[in-house]
């Protein structure tokens, strides 16, 4: 009798936990046990909801990045021929391609190419090579942030052409790059993200007269802006003798500014694209907003 009930309860828990069915579904399946089952399933649902916590976006991105590094280290240290061979081949190929293109002005052509262009894969390969040749983690984050601007332009272009598949593919690529930025910045230095370094600098939220931090140290949420001041000069960031000391908050400003610019560009384009690609475009906006929360600390 007890064993039979344990089987019934387990079946209901399986429906509730794994298959996402409701308590009513289970009670309807076992009406003769409904009275006993009801409060147990309510307890189970409470337990399931409480246990279903989500890792924060920042932790998820940071952990993923660090795991990728560990994976690559493991692959190379254990002599994974395939992995090392692929890496060397890719590096050699991109170097050759860039050297060939540099003389013929093709760099400019590929730089503007869109995902439906035959040169697009070359554009991505060149970006990858730029990354391979950038050694500081923070410089990498800044470079990838620049690339995200290109991804956004590509997404808008493909959305305007009604190419839903390429908008989705572009959003996935954008998402990967945004996660890399979060991982790189968090991996390098947690301090600059928690506002402690910024409080000293007295920087403002781009496009507003509000400080980047409140009195509680929290970074203000992204403003809805229609026009923005020019981005801080990247030269200025690194020319100052205090550049190293101030590098982190300055980089944060750049990343936040890029995030706002990208988000605004996508929002502005919403009315210019066919209805069929609007949902995919909204998804890209959501990805950027999640990134903004992670990078500014408001989503963590």
């Amino acid at each position, binding site marked *: 009798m007890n064993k039979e009930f344990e089987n019934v309860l*387990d079946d209901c828990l399986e429906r509730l936990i794994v298959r996402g069915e409701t308590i009513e579904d289970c009670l309807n399946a076992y009406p003769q046990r409904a009275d006993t089952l009801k409060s147990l399933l309510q*307890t189970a649902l*409470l337990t399931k*909801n409480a*246990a279903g*916590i*989500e890792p924060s976006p920042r932790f998820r991105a940071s952990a993923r990045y660090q795991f990728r590094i*560990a994976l690559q280290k493991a692959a190379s240290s254990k002599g994974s021929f395939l992995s090392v061979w692929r890496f060397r081949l890719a590096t050699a190929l991109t170097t050759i391609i860039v050297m060939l293109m540099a003389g013929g002005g093709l760099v400019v052509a590929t730089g503007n190419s869109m995902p439906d262009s035959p040169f697009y894969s070359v554009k991505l390969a060149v970006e990858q090579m730029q990354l391979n040749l950038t050694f500081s983690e923070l410089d990498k984050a800044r470079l990838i942030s620049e690339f995200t601007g290109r991804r956004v332009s590509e997404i808008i272009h493909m959305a305007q052409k009604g190419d839903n598949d390429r908008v989705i593919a572009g959003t996935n690529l954008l998402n990967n790059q945004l996660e890399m930025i979060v991982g790189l910045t968090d991996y390098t230095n947690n301090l600059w993200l928690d506002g402690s370094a910024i409080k000293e600098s007295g920087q403002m939220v781009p496009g507003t007269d509000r400080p980047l931090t409140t009195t509680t140290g929290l970074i203000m949420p992204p403003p809805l802006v229609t026009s923005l001041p020019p981005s801080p000069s990247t030269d200025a960031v690194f020319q100052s003798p205090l550049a190293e000391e101030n590098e982190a908050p300055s980089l944060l400003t750049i990343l936040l500014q890029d995030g706002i610019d990208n988000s605004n560009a996508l929002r502005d384009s919403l009315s210019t694209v066919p209805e069929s690609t609007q949902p995919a475009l909204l998804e890209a906006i959501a990805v950027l907003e999640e990134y903004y929360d992670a990078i500014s600390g408001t989503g963590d």
Partner: protein
Amino acid sequence: VQDEQSLVQRARQHDEEAFAELYEKYFDKIYRYISLKIGNRIEAEDMTQQVFINALSSISSFKWRGLPFSAWLFRIAHNQVVDHLRKKTRQPTFSLNESITASNDNPQKMTEQNMDIEQLVLATRNLTIAQQEVIALRFAGELPISQVAKIMGKSEGAVKALQHSAVVSLRKILNVVQ
């Protein structure tokens, strides 16, 4: 199962993409399992990362002997939790309300969830060790009863009985009324 078997096989041969896929599949579940067992977000985050690093370094020793990959991974997590708790001289302090809740974007939902999490972590401390393990594996790890049984080295019938008694105890502790 077939797909996972082939993924694990590729991961054992240092295929980065295969291991990355396994990582994505189990990351959230391992995090939830550890969070429920430890009751502290920061520690849970560190330990979740460590579980996958440990799995990566010992994947070549993994063998299919009726034991699914998930069982192997959760055992790594379980051993890490046990080591962690052993190193602590007293029961962990529950700082879930200060940390895990901060990751939620919805304040209203967060408050409700926070209460639930805190209640759940504290409530599970009143269960037996075996009951706690069943609840963590089943509800946080979202594992089927067959895998929970394999991880715990018990029969499915024994795990179902533990599950039953654990839910009954939780109902009393949480004072769930119909």
